[in-house]
């Protein structure tokens, strides 16, 4: 019991159940997925496909054996590592990740690509490991594993652009991991512990850790890796990528920085700025990428608003986002698979041959737009209600604007340009059955959660009696949506809506990817010219020095040739005179 008490601090308000013996026939929750990933690496295609579906189910069954308060710790080189810490927050994310892994697994059944299947399973497993990590070192381990496993989903496209994109992605995430490790070290120095708990912003460790998490979480200016990498991955890879990395980061934020006010403003900025990019972006998966940053903005905002409704809203929205954003990515992946195109300007009219996909996509669009009776509505409104309740009027207005924007670019633009709009003449086949099944499950979940939110609410970290379906919420949201739709229709009919152009839109990563190299190139050219000049000058000087040295010291030179004795005698006399002069001056002074 003593051990129980010492560990009570790690799991506030829960009954601690230490799992350090062969207490139960349970595996660490991350193990089923990781083991399946390793087995899949060696397994034949049929078994790999089975694993893709069965491993998440096995993992979920295993997961259900745990309850809040479970703890597994191990000692390594003097550090007590908390390998497993179960509480409601972690449990919810773990459940979500298994669900996402299952959906992506079903979605991936048509493919035979071993690299993607293995990477996907390991990636999901690392995400589960990360949310259960009780201390910063274990978190660091899974944090890096996330980066390393996920990059193969980008490289799996096997194109030069995606290879380079993947390298940039890896660079960013390794940097994030290094920052996390530095933060952990600072935390150890400052507090003498590595336990990952709520921190107050102020210590150096907290800022470094926030930066590490912020990179993965797509904080403004740190977000470019997402819109760079996600559209570069395979149709399948993007579905995996969209589910885990950013959500793990949201989990880490909720764990460590609950109620930190700066997060409200960061979240607000994140919800706002991607809208403009999303509206003008042509690549529909990149549109979804921006929309994703926008949705994470709501979550970050919710975390910043703090315990209770704020965090509940953030977590619930993360849960829903994985499903509806996964659904949207899956539908776009199906379009990409069948047509080979993903730019809005090259698509259109696909509803004729892909009606089911179109319909499922519209369910996702309705969810992300937070239509009542769809999942987005029941979680997004929590964050906005809390913002208004806490008196952040500006934030509330900004989130309102962001909601309208989401509807615009994700709710209307994605399905409209892909499946309707002008007829592109493309007549692709309907998506493969496994894809439709996966999308169907996701769509069902969207509607189910939208209609019966209490099941989700029961899983949230804080007890809630929130009721989304009151008159105010519904009416307000419908007004917003209808006026937003009106605006879209008006703009389209009057031709003001920015046309989908075959263009590349510049984000801040332009500075890193184009401006900086160009500037560097110019600087290098200028510097090179100067350096060359200096070198040439030095070479000339050296040449002169060399010829002087040769003239003086070579066997034919002044100092190198044997002197006539007279010369030496002359110098002896000179030296004598010099010494006499010195002695005379020295003694005279």
């Amino acid at each position, binding site marked *: 019991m003593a051990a129980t008490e010492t560990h009570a601090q790690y799991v506030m308000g829960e009954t601690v159940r230490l799992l350090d013996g062969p207490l139960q026939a349970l595996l660490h929750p991350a193990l089923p997925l990781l083991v399946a990933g390793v087995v899949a690496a060696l397994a034949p295609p049929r078994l790999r496909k089975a694993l893709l579906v069965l491993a998440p189910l096995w993992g979920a069954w295993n997961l259900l054996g745990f309850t809040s308060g479970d703890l597994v710790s191990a000692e390594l080189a003097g550090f007590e590592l908390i390998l497993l810490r179960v509480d409601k927050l972690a449990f919810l994310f773990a459940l979500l990740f298994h669900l996402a892994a299952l959906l992506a697994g079903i979605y991936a059944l048509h493919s035979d690509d071993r690299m993607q299947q293995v990477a996907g399973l390991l990636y999901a497993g690392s995400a589960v490991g990360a949310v259960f990590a009780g201390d910063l070192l274990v978190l660091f381990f899974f944090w890096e594993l996330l980066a390393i496993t996920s990059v193969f989903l980008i490289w799996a496209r096997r194109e030069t652009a995606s290879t380079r994109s993947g390298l940039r992605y890896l660079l960013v995430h390794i940097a994030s991991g290094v920052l996390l490790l530095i933060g952990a070290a600072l935390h150890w120095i400052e507090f003498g512990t590595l336990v990952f708990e709520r921190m107050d912003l102020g210590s150096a460790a907290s800022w470094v850790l926030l930066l590490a998490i912020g990179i993965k979480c797509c904080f403004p200016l740190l977000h470019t890796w997402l819109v760079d990498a996600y559209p570069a991955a395979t149709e399948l890879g993007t579905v995996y990528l969209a589910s885990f990395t950013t959500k793990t980061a949201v989990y880490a934020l909720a764990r460590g920085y609950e109620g930190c006010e700066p997060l409200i403003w960061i979240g607000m900025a994140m919800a706002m700025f991607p809208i403009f990019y999303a509206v003008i972006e042509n690549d529909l998966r990149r549109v979804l990428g921006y929309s994703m940053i926008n949705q994470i903005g709501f979550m970050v905002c919710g975390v910043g608003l703090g315990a209770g409704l704020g965090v509940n809203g953030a977590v619930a929205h993360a849960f829903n986002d994985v499903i509806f954003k996964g659904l949207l990515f899956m539908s776009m992946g199906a379009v990409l698979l069948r047509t080979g195109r993903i730019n809005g300007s090259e698509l259109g009219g696909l509803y004729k041959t892909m009606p089911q996909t179109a319909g499922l996509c519209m369910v996702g669009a309705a969810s992300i737009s937070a239509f009542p009776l769809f999942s987005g509505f029941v979680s997004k409104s929590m964050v906005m209600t809390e913002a208004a309740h806490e008196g952040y009027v500006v934030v509330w207005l900004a989130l309102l604007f962001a909601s309208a924007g989401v509807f615009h670019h994700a709710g209307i633009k994605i399905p409209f340009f892909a499946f309707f709009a002008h007829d592109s003449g493309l007549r692709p086949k309907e998506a493969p059955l496994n894809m439709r099944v996966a999308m169907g499950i996701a769509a069902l979940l969207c509607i189910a959660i939208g209609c019966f939110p209490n099941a989700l609410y029961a899983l949230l970290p804080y007890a809630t009696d929130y009721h989304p379906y009151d008159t105010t919420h519904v009416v307000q949201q419908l007004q917003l949506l209808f006026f937003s739709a009106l605006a879209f229709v008006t703009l389209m009919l009057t031709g003001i809506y920015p046309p989908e152009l075959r263009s590349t839109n510049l984000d801040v990563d332009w500075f890193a990817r184009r401006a900086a190299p160009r500037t560097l190139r110019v600087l290098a050219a200028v510097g090179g010219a100067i350096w060359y000049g200096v070198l040439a000058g030095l070479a000339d000087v050296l040449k002169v020095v060399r010829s002087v*040295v*040769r003239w*003086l*010291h*070579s*066997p034919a*030179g002044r*100092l*190198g040739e*044997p*002197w006539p*004795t007279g*010369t*030496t*005698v002359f*110098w*002896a006399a000179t*030296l*004598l005179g*010099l*010494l*006499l002069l*010195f*002695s*005379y001056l*020295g*003694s005279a002074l």
Partner: protein
Amino acid sequence: MAAESVGQGLQQVALSTAFDVHFPALEVVLPLVAAPLCFLFRSRAFARILSAAVAWLTFGVALVLLQKVLAEGTVRYPLGGWAAPYGIEYRVTVAGAWVILVVSLVAALTLLFDSRGSASRLAPERRYLYYSAFLLCLAGLLGMAITGDLFNIFVFLEISSLSSYALIALGRDRRALMASYSYLIMGTIGGGFFMIGVGLLYQMTGTLNVEDMAQRLPAVLDTRTVLVGFAFLLVGLSIKLAVFPLHQWLPNAYTFAPPRVSAFLAGTATKVSYYVMAEVVFVLFGAHFVFTEIGLGAVLMPLSVAAMFVGSLAAIYQADLRRLLAYSSIGQLGYMTLGLSLANVEGLTSGLVHVFNHGVTKSGLFLVVACVGYRTGRTTVRSMAGLGTRMPATSLAFVIGGMSLIGVPGTAGFVSKWELIRGALAAERLWLAAVVLVSSLLAVVYVWRVVEMIYFGRPEGLESLGRDGEPVREAPFSMLLPTLILVAATVVFGLWSDPTLSVARSAAVELLGGAGG
């Protein structure tokens, strides 16, 4: 003072009946007596054995003397029982014992070296003359370091100089005659200047004993006569020491002398002059007078730095190995005089430890060249081409000796250079330390030229054939042994520098604390 000295001298003679009292005299008398014996017996074999035996004996005596000096302080020996300042006193200081140790060691090892072939101009049946001159030269050099009498120093200086002119003139190349003649002129001027200086000082103090003169000089230091005497002494010694720009007699002399003579003189002659200069500067006049009042540093330091660069740069361009080594010696002497001009313990220690370190290094390298010359018949840098495989031991010996010239850590050269840099830093002259390091890079260049030739050069045409048209082989053991001993010494005393450094340091402390300082 005089009476006290008399008393001391008598006491020493009276109280100690042991034979080792006479060691200071024995050290000089042995080679001095052996030299005419060689002449009288007119046998080459006898002369060879006798000279080698005498050289080893002097080395043994030097070792005993050094131990005695270190244990008991300065050893005094009034010659013929005539006490100083009236008689000639042999006075062995730590520095003096240190220098005679180096001289006798180098002499013993070079005489051990089996100089085969017709290395000198002498007909084989007259080769005994060579040994006679060699022993005379040895006696002169040892005497300079032992005697405590200024005029006696001059006498020994002339004995060693005259015999070395003769030795150099024995070189097989006819240019040796010209080199010897040039050295004769310069050496005589040097000796003459020294004599003039001694005469002027004698005129002012009425004594020739160094210590006695040092006692009397302060009273007359401000007279022009003493100043002029000092200038003559110093310039005279500078010629013998080959201080830049009075160095030009040296390259030719070392290049054209018989191989063993080059090795012997390179390791000893200038070193003894260095000791005499240190004695004149620190004991006779005192560091205060020389460096503070006259400001000798302002003259000697730039000249030393110039020597470091001129010597090393000229060495880079030399085609002949012995000439290369000779110019390198001028650079290395620059390090020694630089240490002296710093006038602090570290600087003087580096100079005195370099007496040993450079002595064994340069003698070893000259012996290496003698081996190469014996097998290939040439002593050009080019003649080393491809020797790495055909004369592996000799080649390795050159590489190690070259590393010591550069001052690579682990070799003797590093010990001296490190001490010199410490001295420069102690004197708060950072730029000097930098200059020493930069000039060491020049040594890398001239050593590398040879090393590259040894290991990467390809002999062309007849170059692969040796002196007698035979393929070049490793040098015979009797040549290799002393060479390798000297080269090994550079490594041994590079790694185990405590004994050399501690002796040199106590010698430096003794000199700096000398009379008049």
